[in-house]
Structure formats: structure tokens, C-alpha cells
């Protein structure tokens, strides 16, 4: 089982790589089509803007590869902006079409009493399945945009004022994590490990 960590020359890969090393996961850091095809799952890390991230992947000719592997039932895990680009579109920077693997749109967080943007906070996860081990655990968020998607795609969320902001989304073999599991202490690491091992 090898994880392809997509290197699109924008995200900070150091932290996510440290987290994978911490658990002795077998992984490669790559932007080569054949290497990605040969791996058993794909991890899209992310720091940066929606439009820039899509453009980087486009420039590296990776959009189609990722989509194709997702259709072939390979597990895809996106983190932060890597999660957001799994959606149909985003309006950060220029309006941009996403990978379209999870039905939804990425929008700016609404102005909300008592909360500032960017949302730089440890926040409490609420799982739709309340028996989840991680229900009510706190994890670290750092974002200004969020994915608006149907409830059935939402594994867990945070309350952001009146709004439910998705924390973990899933559609078939595609997973997205809005927060930074690699920066959320031991709980974050455990959540990441579980998703990668599922």
C-alpha cells in the first residue's frame, strides 16, 4: 500500500510528510502520472488558494489523472484546500471549476458574530454518527472558505454560527478533510491514520 502525496509546488508538504513518517506509512511525493497510477491511494495536501491550486494541477496535467483514478475507485484524500478542490467549483480568487468528485461549491465563510476570518481555531467536531470515537474532539482549522455540500456527504462538521461547516466529507472512495489533521495534535494524527487505513 503506497500513498501518492501530490506535489504541486504550492502546498507545504513538510508537515504532512512528517505525519506520514510518524506512522511509518509507505508513501512517495510525486507529480508524475505513472507513479500516481501505481499507488494505492492519493493524498492531496493543501495550503493556498482554490484557483491557484487547480491551475497548478492543470499545468502538471494531473487533473484528469486524479479524476480517472477516483472513478477507478482508488481512495483519494484531500486536506484543506486539497479537500476544497474535490468540489464542483470555488470562488476563491477567480471562479474556478474543481475536480467535481464531491457535489458542492466552495464559498467564503460568512461574517459571523464572535468569529473572525480567517477561521484560525481549534473547534469541536460533531459527527453525524454520534457514536464516533472523535465526536466532540477539537481539531485545528485554518481557512477562510468552506465547502457547501449536501448533508449525506458530511461525516463531521463544526458549528460556525448558524452554519454547519463540513470538517470531513466523503463520497464513495473520496475523502476530504477541511481541518489540518497533521496540526491537531494526537487526535488529528489518529483521525488521519484511520482515514488512510480505511
Amino acid at each position, binding site marked *: 500500500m503506497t500513498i501518492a502525496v501530490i506535489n504541486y509546488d504550492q502546498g507545504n508538504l*513538510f*508537515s504532512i510528510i512528517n505525519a506520514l513518517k510518524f506512522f511509518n506509512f509507505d508513501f512517495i511525493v510525486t507529480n508524475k502520472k505513472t507513479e500516481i497510477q501505481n499507488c494505492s491511494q492519493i493524498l492531496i495536501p493543501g495550503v493556498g488558494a482554490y484557483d491557484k491550486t487547480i491551475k497548478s494541477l492543470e499545468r502538471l496535467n494531473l487533473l484528469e489523472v486524479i479524476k480517472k483514478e477516483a472513478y477507478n475507485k482508488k481512495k483519494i484524500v484531500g486536506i484543506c484546500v486539497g479537500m476544497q478542490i474535490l468540489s464542483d467549483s470555488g470562488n476563491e480568487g477567480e471562479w474556478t471549476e474543481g475536480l467535481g468528485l464531491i457535489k458542492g461549491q466552495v464559498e467564503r465563510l460568512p461574517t459571523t458574530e464572535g468569529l473572525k476570518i*480567517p477561521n*484560525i481555531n481549534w473547534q469541536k467536531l460533531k459527527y453525524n454518527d454520534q457514536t464516533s470515537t472523535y465526536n466532540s474532539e477539537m481539531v485545528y482549522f485554518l481557512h477562510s472558505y468552506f465547502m457547501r455540500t449536501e448533508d449525506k456527504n458530511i461525516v463531521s462538521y463544526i458549528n460556525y454560527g448558524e452554519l454547519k461547516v463540513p470538517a470531513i466529507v466523503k463520497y464513495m472512495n473520496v475523502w476530504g478533510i477541511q481541518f*489540518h489533521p497533521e496540526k491537531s495534535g494526537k487526535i488529528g494524527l489518529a483521525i488521519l491514520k484511520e482515514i488512510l487505513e480505511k
Partner: protein
Amino acid sequence: MKSAPFRLIPRLEIKEDFVVKGYQYEGVEKIGPPHALALKYYEDSADEIIFIDTVASLYGRNTLVNVIQKVAREIFIPLTVGGGIKKISDITTLLSSGADKVAINTHAINNNQFLYDACREFGSQCIVLSVQAKKNEKENDYYALTDNARENPGIKVTDWILKAQDLGVGEILLSSVDRDGTRLGYDIELFEKIAKIANVPVIAHGGAGSINDINKICSSQFSDAISFSSIVHYKIATISDIKKKLRENNIYIR
């Protein structure tokens, strides 16, 4: 009412491979090696850690790359690094060494365009404006100092923060120079003043000497996070002690 928890952030000021602690940014005492201290605070439930190279501005370079690289292998919470950052490539180097955010003071004041460019290049969420606020008693107002509080370019803290927010900073690390290392408590007046104009998260720093000081600033709700050094460096209290007390007082924390 805040709907997000206060973040508790130990701050490690580093000089030549050692964590040090000064008094109003002058004179320093050696505390210990950065890696061991950072690991200890991580295990003790720190929400983030700030590393500041205190002599970087003087020598024109940040020497924390090796420290961060080592620390980031074992510490999985957000790491902010500051001191002597003056080029886009300095930020790239730090971020690719394991830093999540960078704190910029001197070169943001001396070169506003650099701050703007940094926010555009890396995103606001990555760029922390570090402000060293010094009170002018006569004017009853605060000025933003540079070069580890050695220079006063004559810019009022309020004016500078308003401008920096327009330039795109995502967070403000606001330190009281007068209270630094004194253990006299946070300068509530300063943070109240800034709370009125800040539209990005503010981390309050300077003067925490007891759990009570921290309780006071948290209760005031004039900041979104707090940082501290002496209280943990000198083992006056652990982060868990502080959190326990805050929880008892119904302050929302992790």
C-alpha cells in the same frame, strides 16, 4: 461572546540555539534547548508554539530553520516562526522547514510592499504581523517598535494595525514591550484599544506572571489567543494548570 476557544501559545525566544528570556526586550537569561522545551509544551497541551529569533533582525538572518525542521518531526500543532524575515524566499524556506505561519515586524514596517507581497504569495492565513507596542506616557498612546524593540520609527500601533490589515495580514501578535518579562500581567488597556479596530485574530503577549493574569486577559475577551513565556519557562505554572483554572472559570478553551 466568543464562539471559538482561546488559544494558549507558549512563546520561545531564541538566541544562538538557546531559549532565552529578557526583561522589556533587554538582557537575557538562558532557559534551555528549544527542542526539549517545545516538546514539553506540546505534551502539556499547548495549542500552538511561537518561535522568535531575537537577534535575527540585528544580524539580518533567521537561524531557526534547523530548530524548526527538528521540532516539526515530533510536534503536530501549528508552529509560528519570526525574527529577521525580510524576503519572500525567507518565508518559503521557513514554510518548507515545517513552519505553518511566519511573524513579521521590522521589515513589514520598513517595507509595506513586502508585507503585501507576502500575504498575496502565501495567503493571509500564513502571515502574522508581529507588533512590539511601547507606551508613550505623555501621549497616552502606543508606538510600534522595530529591531527587537530597539528602534522607534514613530508609527502609532493603531495606525499600523489598520494599515497592515488592509495589506492583508491574517493575524496579529501584539506584544507589550513595557510588560515583557516583568510578570506584571497583561496590559489590558493596550488590548482593549486594539480589540476595537482588529478584524483579524489577535494574540496578546507580554507580562503573564501568574494564572490569574491569564485569567484576567481571557475574561476581558480583548484577544483571541494569548502567548506567554516566563510563566512556563520558570515553572510558575504548567499549561495544564492554566487550562484547568480557565475551565473552572468557564472560559472556553481546548
